[in-house]
């Protein structure tokens, strides 16, 4: 049975004949406490959704996996193609050391066993964006296996309660990316750009331990943060550096797993959650209507919010796997097995890499909580937003205000302004020093918190005025003088008496 939650899914609303689910359907979420909810409400037996993921992360390296051509996003078509990438006859693959290191780093960060000996294979199929007619991958023995990834979810959509889940990592394998083909239907032609052909990928396979879109999204988000922290992949989905395919099936508790479908063409984490949830819903409805699920590949249509069968993949492909004869087995060493007179340029030492791993997100969060006394949920948000942690820490350095209070200003005020205006932390018109100045005024009780918010609103306009200048301009200072205060109060009371 699927680990994690035993979600319970019921038809949310009546489904029209065919077509995507009508709008207005509420997002279904899992029962995070586990255990099936008894089928009381609608009289239907509960469903257990099962979600696994195949994630392709483009390795962040200067050159490709087996050739020396450059790796770069959005370069002119076919400008980054070496003879080997174009599959010119007689060319041979040469393994890129940096790609191996990236895969080892990622494997270690995901608690995998690194295979000291892994092998390369050819996976054959014909397609315009695959010049050699085969992809070099690791089918028999991949570089890393049997790991795990922990991620957190908020229960009940509130930031107050977070629960930690784990998904098993089946394996990580090194493989080549394909080129890009663009179909020009008006001229009945296909344009092929091989810039991406041969770029190194790490395929991370997550076991079907997840049960809904939210879990899948959270797991991928955490993986993304890990990859970015390691630097092994920039993992930006919009640039195709992180691609996710979801494997979805449903079954009744106690029964064997159902037929699964593969969902592709998911372009963001948000869409991932939507696609998974839609597919789960679709399968439940199909089965409850007496239909069957086909073992097929479906594409997510983000405009319609549904999955549709993909035309290209028909029938089961036999990839005719064969060992790659031009690449000897990949041997990795650790401190113990490292031979004495080896050329260090020629080997990858797992222990050496392990020692140099940076703090992973989970460690960073724990440190933030410990150091600044903030809540775990806060640490998640800090890490989730690119540059926000740095911003927060810079403000804390420059102000006397306690971090516990600063965090509120960062997460409630600054962040909401950024979101409203769709800005990244880097693009913030309010810098950390400026915010720190403002918070200092508040801390010294020179202004009230209401006033501070007004000043912030003013600062947001980015006109270059300092907080002090704005306070003076708008006369927002708190009156400290006892006598002055007495005079004002007296004036008010007098005013009242006159009515």
């Amino acid at each position, binding site marked *: 049975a699927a680990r994690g939650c035993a979600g319970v899914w019921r038809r949310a609303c009546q489904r029209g004949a065919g077509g995507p689910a009508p709008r207005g359907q509420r997002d279904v979420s899992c029962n995070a406490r586990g255990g099936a909810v008894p089928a009381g409400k609608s009289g239907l037996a509960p469903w257990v959704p099962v979600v696994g993921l195949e994630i392709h992360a483009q390795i962040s390296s200067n050159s490709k996996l087996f050739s020396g051509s450059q790796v770069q996003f959005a370069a002119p078509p076919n400008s980054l193609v070496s*003879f080997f990438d174009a599959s010119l006859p007689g060319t*041979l693959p040469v393994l890129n050391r940096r790609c191996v290191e990236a895969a080892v780093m990622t494997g270690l960060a995901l608690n995998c066993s690194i295979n000291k000996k892994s092998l390369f294979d050819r996976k054959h199929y014909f397609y315009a964006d695959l010049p050699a007619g085969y992809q070099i991958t690791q089918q028999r023995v991949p570089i890393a296996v049997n790991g795990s990834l922990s991620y957190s979810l908020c229960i009940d959509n509130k930031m107050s309660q977070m629960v930690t889940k784990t998904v098993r990592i089946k394996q990580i394998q090194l493989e080549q990316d394909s080129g890009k083909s663009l179909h020009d239907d008006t001229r009945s032609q296909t344009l092929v750009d091989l810039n991406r052909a041969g770029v190194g990928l790490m395929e991370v396979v997550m076991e079907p331990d997840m049960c809904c879109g939210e879990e899948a999204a959270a797991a991928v988000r955490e993986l993304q943060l890990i990859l970015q922290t390691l630097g092994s992949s920039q993992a930006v989905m919009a640039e195709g550096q992180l691609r996710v395919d979801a494997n979805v099936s449903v079954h009744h508790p106690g029964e064997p797993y159902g037929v699964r479908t593969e969902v592709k063409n998911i372009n963001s984490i948000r869409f991932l959650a939507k696609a998974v949830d839609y597919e789960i819903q679709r399968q439940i409805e199909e089965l409850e209507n007496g239909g069957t699920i086909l073992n097929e590949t479906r594409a997510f249509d983000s405009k319609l919010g549904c999955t549709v069968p993909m035309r290209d993949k028909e029938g089961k492909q036999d990839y005719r796997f064969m060992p790659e004869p031009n690449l000897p087995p990949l041997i990795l060493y650790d401190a113990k097995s490292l031979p004495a007179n080896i050329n260090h340029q020629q080997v990858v030492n797992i222990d050496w890499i392990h020692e140099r791993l940076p703090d992973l997100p989970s460690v960073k969060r724990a440190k933030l909580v410990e150091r600044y006394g903030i809540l775990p949920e806060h640490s998640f948000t800090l890490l989730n937003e690119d540059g926000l942690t740095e911003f927060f820490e810079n403000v804390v350095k420059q102000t006397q205000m306690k971090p516990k209070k600063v965090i509120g200003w960062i997460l409630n005020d600054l962040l909401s302004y950024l979101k409203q205006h769709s800005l990244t932390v880097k693009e913030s018109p309010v810098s950390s020093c400026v915010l720190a100045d403002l918070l200092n005024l508040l801390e010294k009780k020179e202004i009230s918190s209401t006033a501070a918010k007004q000043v912030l609103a003013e600062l947001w306009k980015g006109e270059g005025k300092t907080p002090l200048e704005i306070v003076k301009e708008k006369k927002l200072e708190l009156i400290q003088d006892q006598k002055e205060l007495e005079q004002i109060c007296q004036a008010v009371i007098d005013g009242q008496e006159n009515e």
Partner: protein
Amino acid sequence: QVSAALKEGRVTPTELCQRCLALVQSTKFLNAYITVAEETALKQAEESEKRYRRGQPLGVLDGIPIAVKDNFNTAGIETTCASNMLKGYISPYNATVVQKLLDQGAVLLGKTNLDEFAMGSGSTDGVFGPVRNPWSYSRQYKEKSVPKPHSEDEESDWVITGGSSGGSAAAVSSFTCFAALGSDTGGSTRNPAAHCGVVGLKPTYGLISRHGLIPLVNSMDVPGILTRCVDDAAVVLGSLAGHDPKDSTTVQDNFKPFELPNLTDVSKLSIGIPKEYRAPGLSSEILSLWSKAADLFKSAGAKVIEVSLPHTCYSIVCYHVLCTTEVASNMARFDGLEYGHRSDMNKSTESMYAATRREGFNDVVRGRILSGNYFLLKQNYENYFIKAQKVRRLIANDFVKVFGSGVDVLLTPTTLSDAVPYKEFIKEDNRTRSTQDDILTQAANMAGLPAINVPTALSERGLPVGLQFIGRSFQEKQLLTVAKWFEKQVKFPVIQLEEVKRHGHGVFQHQKSASFS
């Protein structure tokens, strides 16, 4: 000797080049060359001449005309693999071995003919037609052949060169060049060497870079060296061997080029005679020659013992599975999209691929692709591919055991008979022929071992017959030393070609065997 002549100025590189080019022209009927690179060759000869005048030749190979089999990439010169698929294909880069030869100052005369994509044992199945064995036109052969009535075409009796590096073998044999590159996957260098009476060396797998050699079977292919004597083979080997970062299957150990000693004492040598190489179909002539050779070693004081390589009989079947599977994979890149022939069919990408491949490949290639794909299917993989790999390991282990028991070098025949007439050869299909002809050479490729054909004697029909020596992994020096000794003993005759005599090449005529050093 010719190298010395160049150094001493007795002949200039340009003269040498011109004479060779003229000879290429006059031996055109052999069809040994697909492309003759006259302009670039003359330029290279000029450059070489400048160096010699300055007294700064790059080495022994400077100014020496060579030929390269047309499955090696040569920048700016057409590389076709004798296939419609690559007709007109001009590669943008040089194969590592080609580059190395050019860096040494060698003069590249042209690209030689072969069986399409190196599939075949006759050099008869390429799109540019078959290669004719120069010995067909030798006095030695003509004297021994039955005189024909004038009504019959004299030309039709010509014999094949063997294959698949037939063009290279013919080029060396007919004096058009001093050395040629071939490739050897199942015997493709040694087989034509034997039939054309030249030295054919198959180096240890991993010694010489395959970068730029259009692959047949990546795990067995090696660049092969064809020369007129063993010393020359050693010289060429010296300039080619060594690690290439562009080829991950080359060993990283440092390679030191060597000069072959003149062995006089063979008493410390142990020669193995594998009994399984007495193959069905082995001609009695060759059998007796093999026996005489063994006796030669024995009477010179060497230890000659019979050994057994029990899995030899499985090597052909094993080779068929492993070869066709790799072929199916290696040929997958020929889809007409990036380079090579592209069909006019454009209804869909798939139909374009199918038409391109049907038009571009001959049936031998297509047949192997289909077989290979069959063996790679999920349901067949275990029973065919995996099993063949296991048998391959057994074959390789046979050699390990024998060499481990103290044998230095193995002595076997190279071919089952002397060269057959073309008319005879084409009576059987390519697959049948390959099965028959590869049997004595194939196992060395399975095991990755070095092997060499040394021309031994003329058959009753006046055609060359060679014998093969197989050595230990990376022990080319020992192998070639033994081969050189043997070569000296047998004194194989020089081919007497009327055409060569007509041109009066002083350099060639008055020698027992033409050589560099």
